[in-house]
């Protein structure tokens, strides 16, 4: 296969395109990391130098202290962690339960129910946020975790993914457990759930990420500073500190660390998980 190794003009062109795209995708991330250690004057200096002169640690102090020294950043990032984790857990639990029910049991209306759940994928969240907002007002759960979490307890995409995965699950395992006298719920909890780890990981990551990224719904639900989430914090911080680019980048970097850690430890589930339909909230 020596012919393949020849360096040709199209090959050089292809490599150049790939390199240009590599630069385009990574440059802003490197810029964020580098700029978070710089003073605003350095960031906006012409020409820009990529290596920070010394470390402007005060950027991170400002980012955490917030605009009025209240350390609300800590509370806001915790809110995001709580909401995203809860949504990931409930999505996995409810979607796997429903997916199991739809995949392995025959009952009247099964197909109809599945089709109806699939139909909700066509309803974008953006189109129902006004009625949902009215529900939140009637229930008086503005500024609560319940209000932030309730509309995202489970996703149709999650049900779909779980059902697809469990259809191929060997029924013999389930029957064997039944013969041994295990209850139906016990079978779900002890036989089915532990055997769908890959799909659970993918689904949990997708759900976690969609809430970590969610700005619109918290804007509607959380007006009090204490109940705001991290996207809201970044947005407010960028607004009130609009001339302090270093602190803005420090806040952005801090807010991205949980996702970076998750991505680095579970890369294959990120990449694999994106290769299917993203949930309607994605």
């Amino acid at each position, binding site marked *: 296969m020596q012919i*393949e190794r020849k360096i040709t003009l199209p090959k050089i062109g*292809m490599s150049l*395109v*790939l390199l240009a*795209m590599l630069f*385009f*995708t*990574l440059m*802003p991330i490197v810029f*964020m990391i580098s*700029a978070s250690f710089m003073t605003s004057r350095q*960031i*906006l200096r012409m020409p820009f130098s990529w290596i920070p002169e010394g470390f402007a640690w005060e950027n991170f102090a400002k980012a955490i202290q917030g605009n009025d020294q209240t350390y609300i950043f800590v509370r806001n990032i915790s809110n995001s962690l709580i909401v995203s984790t809860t949504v990931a857990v409930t999505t996995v639990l*409810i979607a796997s*339960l*429903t997916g*199991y*029910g*739809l995949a392995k*049991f*025959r*009952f009247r209306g*099964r197909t109809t*129910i599945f089709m109806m759940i699939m139909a*909700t994928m066509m*309803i*974008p*969240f*953006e*189109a*129902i*946020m*006004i*009625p949902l*907002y*009215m529900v939140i007002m009637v229930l008086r759960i503005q500024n609560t975790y319940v209000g932030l979490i309730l*509309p995202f*307890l489970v996703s*149709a995409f999650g049900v779909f993914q779980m059902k697809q995965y469990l259809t191929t699950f060997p029924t013999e395992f389930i029957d064997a457990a039944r013969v041994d006298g295990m209850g*139906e719920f016990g079978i779900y909890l002890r036989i089915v759930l532990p055997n769908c780890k890959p799909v659970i990981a993918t689904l949990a990551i997708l759900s976690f990420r969609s809430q970590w*990224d969610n700005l*619109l719904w918290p*804007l509607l639900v959380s007006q009090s500073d204490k109940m705001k989430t991290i*996207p809201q914090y*970044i*947005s407010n911080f*960028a*607004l009130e500190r609009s001339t302090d*680019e270093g602190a*803005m*980048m420090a806040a*952005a970097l801090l*807010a*991205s660390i949980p*996702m970076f850690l998750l*991505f680095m430890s579970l890369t294959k589930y*990120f*990449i694999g998980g*994106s290769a299917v339909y993203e949930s309607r909230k*994605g």
Partner: protein
Amino acid sequence: MGLKKYRGIERKQARWGFIFVVPSMLFFSLFSFYPIINAIYTSFFDKRALSKAPPKFLGLGNYIRLFDPARAANSLSFYNSLRATLVFTLGTFIPLLILSLMIAVFISNLSSNRTKKFLQISYYCPAILSSVVAATIWMIIFDPRGLGNQWINALLGTPGVDQGWLVDPVMEQVSTMVIYFWKYIGYFVILFITGLASIPPTIYEAATIDGASKWQVFWRITLPLLKPTVVLVSVMAMLQCLKTFSTQYMLYSNGAPRAPINVITFNIYVTGIQQQYLGRASAMSVVLFIMMLLLTLLQFKTTKSENVDY
């Protein structure tokens, strides 16, 4: 007798299956079907959030107002939102589609698996940042003194010119497209790589033996076989673009003019939540819903009729 007992077990199991499905059914009824029906219902009324009086029935009044030609000239009209959404969607999804397909083909042609993996992961990196963070980074790059101007001026040989990335109406729209493109390119590259991997290599071997060039292979074999993925990715990208909100919100709240980037979702937010015209915002929601519904149905139709067998 044995049969009867068997059917009893089956019925008992069926009941369990139903019980397992109940939580989801409750959820989707309450948080998907009820709200969309409610949105359609509310769109016929002059409902305000803070008024205690029962809302006045308007019939199609809200829709007529949205599509009133007399309002088209208003820079914050719904017409403008439709235009902004359309421009953003086309301007983002076409480059996304073409470049992600091109890059996916280039990556699949690489021989080293490690390079392939490295490129995929690197291209995917922007997708793990939240939209708000993405917008914040790019707002600094697009600052009049920022990297955006420095590089464009170096490329065009026009030192000291401010391109007005976040001020000029056209450039502002370009900026939102760049941010969105940046965030999603890696995601779509991976979708295409998955699609390409499902084409059996024997087909390529057969074509190469028959003396087809790489260019011919791409146009005659890869692209036709990749059609389902192309349709899927196009519709997904379009649906994603129609839902864009955070980028526009961030740019606007940091001082960029609203009219050029007043996409439908942003208009719904301002009208319904900030100005509290729930009826009017619901009418916009219904229009958005119908647009996305049509797109999805179109996708189902095309993917069904164009099933490819290898």
